[in-house]
């Protein structure tokens, strides 16, 4: 513990002062300050879209900040490229894979800095010796000669970490490092982190998982909607107060007006199993009811939605829509049967970014605005105007390319697209990810209003205030299974957290799922 106290008084190796980063339509970071001391693990917490990843990309030279200072070892620095940041000792371990699949582990570790012999020849002996040495430090059980494409996701992650150790790093940023690791693999990672710590490296640790954060970190900083909300010493705080810092006070407002009159079951899912994705998933959504599906990224929530929507084959189970058993061969069948899916990834799955607002809005219901195959442009305009006004979409005109709108307005276009098809079941996957607070509240209000008018709504989210604030019932998922079901108005946050992290001692079902 004496070492720890010394660290606490040491000068920060890195300081971020008043960092501001704007994207079109969104302020991603507003005057955020943050520092890291040598040899400490500083956890960075916040909901999805709170700005954690953006902050780290600013630090690693991937984004240029619009304002603020980066001070590394008492010297103000500007990083124009990731390589500059890396050279200065700042290493970011990416959430998304940045490996070259068809190259060996060793080559990926030393990408761009491969040891050479005369004639530009790769010094394989040294390359593999150096890589093996790093891999041994990380206790990896694969060879430096393996092809990266043949490795599991967890092992790829270890390659990314190994890459960080090539240069003697001063700061290592771990962005959700355990998201794709199994319980068996996590302790290895923890050892690596403690090892780095002992060498005096400053660690920034981004994670949603409270247990990890309390186990590893010395300090915790919290971001909320791009704003810095404070820093606390881990030893002097508990999960509840940290959660409070993350969520803020907006929670109470949302509880106000949930729908309360429900009809018969609209969607019944029984024992749904998709190989390698989810198993034995059962739940029901009634008419006029909002069901929240809560779980961490990778728990299989989106996959369940995609299966209902006809995008995946299921191997066992049954899906009933309004009493009828359905098995859609294509999304087209699902749409004509009255299912709508607002997908998780707005830009890749939800919108054709190069098309204008109106065309995106009518894309799922083209037959309703055409006769004999010809588009009726007046009807199309009417559809656009109706939803534009109803949802207060801010766009200069219907001709505006959707790619130029802000995230919130883009999402409203996607929702409008589906409302226009008059679905019976509306599935929203992470409806407010990366959206500013104002639009968020508007979308939440809209969801409730839709349910009140009779839609059956399934909201998938990894944000606790969202599922608590919007839904009537909450289904918790962990590792491809439904672990628990709650009444949203009578559930403790700790219960929810336990159900989605597979912690022992929650519900009887959850205990079964941990195996």
């Amino acid at each position: 513990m004496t070492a720890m106290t010394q660290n606490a008084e040491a000068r920060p190796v890195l300081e971020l002062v008043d960092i501001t980063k704007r994207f079109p339509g969104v302020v991603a970071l507003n005057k955020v300050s943050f520092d890291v001391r040598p040899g400490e693990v500083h956890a960075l917490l916040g909901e999805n879209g709170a700005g954690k990843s953006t902050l780290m990309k600013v630090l690693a030279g991937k984004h240029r900040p619009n304002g603020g200072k980066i001070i590394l070892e008492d010297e103000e620095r500007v990083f124009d490229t990731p390589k500059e940041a890396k050279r200065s000792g700042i290493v970011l371990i990416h959430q998304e894979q940045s490996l070259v699949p068809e190259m060996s582990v060793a080559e990926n570790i030393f990408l761009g800095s491969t040891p050479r012999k005369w004639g530009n020849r790769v010094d394989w002996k040294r390359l593999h010796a150096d890589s093996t040495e790093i891999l041994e430090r990380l206790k990896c059980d694969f060879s430096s000669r393996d092809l990266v494409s043949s490795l599991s996701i967890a092992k790829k992650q270890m390659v990314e970490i190994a890459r960080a150790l090539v240069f003697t790093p001063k700061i290592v940023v771990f962005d959700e490092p355990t998201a794709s690791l199994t319980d068996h693999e996590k302790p290895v990672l923890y050892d690596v982190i403690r090892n780095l710590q002992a060498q005096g490296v400053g660690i920034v640790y981004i994670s949603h998982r409270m247990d990890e954060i309390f186990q590893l970190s010395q300090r915790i900083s919290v971001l909320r909607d791009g704003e810095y909300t404070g820093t606390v010493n881990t030893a002097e705080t508990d999960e509840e107060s940290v959660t409070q810092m993350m969520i803020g006070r907006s929670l109470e407002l949302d509880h106000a007006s949930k729908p309360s009159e429900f009809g018969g079951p609209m969607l019944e899912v029984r024992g749904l199993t998709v190989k390698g994705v989810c198993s034995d998933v059962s739940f029901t959504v009634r008419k006029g009811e909002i069901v929240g599906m809560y779980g961490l990224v990778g728990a299989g929530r989106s996959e369940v939605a995609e299966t209902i929507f006809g995008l995946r084959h299921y191997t066992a189970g049954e899906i009933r829509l309004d009493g009828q058993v359905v098995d859609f061969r294509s999304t087209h069948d699902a749409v004509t049967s009255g299912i709508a899916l607002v997908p998780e990834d707005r830009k890749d799955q939800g919108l054709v970014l190069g098309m204008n607002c109106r065309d995106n809005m009518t894309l799922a219901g083209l037959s309703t605005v055409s006769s004999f195959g010809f588009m009726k442009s007046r009807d199309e305009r009417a559809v656009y105007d109706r939803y534009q006004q109803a949802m207060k979409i801010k766009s200069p005109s219907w001709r505006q390319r959707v790619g130029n709108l802000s995230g919130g307005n883009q999402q409203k276009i996607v929702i409008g697209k589906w409302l226009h098809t008059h679905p019976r079941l509306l599935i929203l996957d992470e409806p407010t990810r990366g959206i500013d607070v104002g639009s968020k509240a508007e979308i939440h209000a809209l969801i409730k209003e839709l349910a009140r008018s009779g839609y059956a709504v399934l909201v998938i989210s990894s944000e606790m205030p969202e599922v608590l604030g919007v839904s009537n019932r909450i289904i918790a998922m962990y590792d491809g299974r439904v672990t628990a079901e709650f009444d949203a108005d009578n559930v403790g946050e700790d219960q929810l957290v336990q159900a989605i992290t597979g912690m022992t001692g929650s519900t009887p079902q959850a205990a079964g799922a941990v195996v």
Partner: protein
Amino acid sequence: MASAEDVKQGFMLSKNQRAGLLSFLSAQGILVFFLISMLAFSLFSEQFLSQSNIMTVVRQASIIGIIAVGVTVVIIGGNLDLSVGSMLSFSTVLVVDLHDKIGPTNAILVMFAMTLLIGAVNGFLIGFMRLNSLIVTLAMLSAIQGLVLIYSGGQNVDIANQGDTWFAFFGRDYVAGIAVPVLLFGLLAVIVQVVMSFTGYGRRIFAIGGNPVAAVYSGIRKNWCVFSTYLISAFCVACAALVLGSRVMGSQNNVGQGYELLVLAGIILGGTSLLGGAGSIWKTVIGVLILGFIQNGLLLMGYPYYAQWLVTWVIIILAVWLDLAYKRKHLFTTHS
């Protein structure tokens, strides 16, 4: 710093007012280029702008143009079709050979059916099997060329009684003073342009080319749509074969060799992006005509016919580069 960025943002906003004009010029850039080059050629040769010369150029360009109309649809849908040249050889040889054997009507029907069948094979492999369109159509290019040679036994075919068949209509006749090939080209271009701009089908093809994943997530039957684009492409090739066979009243085995690349050159020059999701038929028409007029203009100025290839090289790259540079500057600034 923050303030500098603010200034820049403000500057961008004021620029927005001019953006309308700029984007108009950019969209019509190829048209402007077309008019300027026409003007330039007309300065060098009085003949160039004469009605008969223009009609000749358009008639010569019509075969490539007809094919390009179909291929443009494929490209807007995000795929490529390199097999059209071989298909043209196949269809022309077929229709000419069958003409004397089973009569013109039947020959035309069989030729259309067979060409559409080949288009369906392309469409099945690319739309339903989801294979890479470049390689599939490359393989088909080779396979169809082989089929032509097998069918004809390596012999050239021709129509025996050339003066005495209504088949001559498609390649040699005039209606209201306009050559039939030109009429056919114009008709197809207008119909397909209308389909692409004003129907739900056209909208779906644009969506698939723009973002295939989002299209599927919007309930569009992507496989059927992609499949259909290859039928359209095949139909256009069949029309071109009709014109070519009728004009020549005979056919060599490799008559369409290299057409796929000339067609692509015309489409690219017109400004349709190979990435899919954008483009238009009339741009393609202009692109094809530019190629035709450059060749003609250079010939009239006394240069050999191959001089146009050098010019084509330069203008294709300039056209695409300028288009790209413009888009980077004005459309993509908002993305990080």
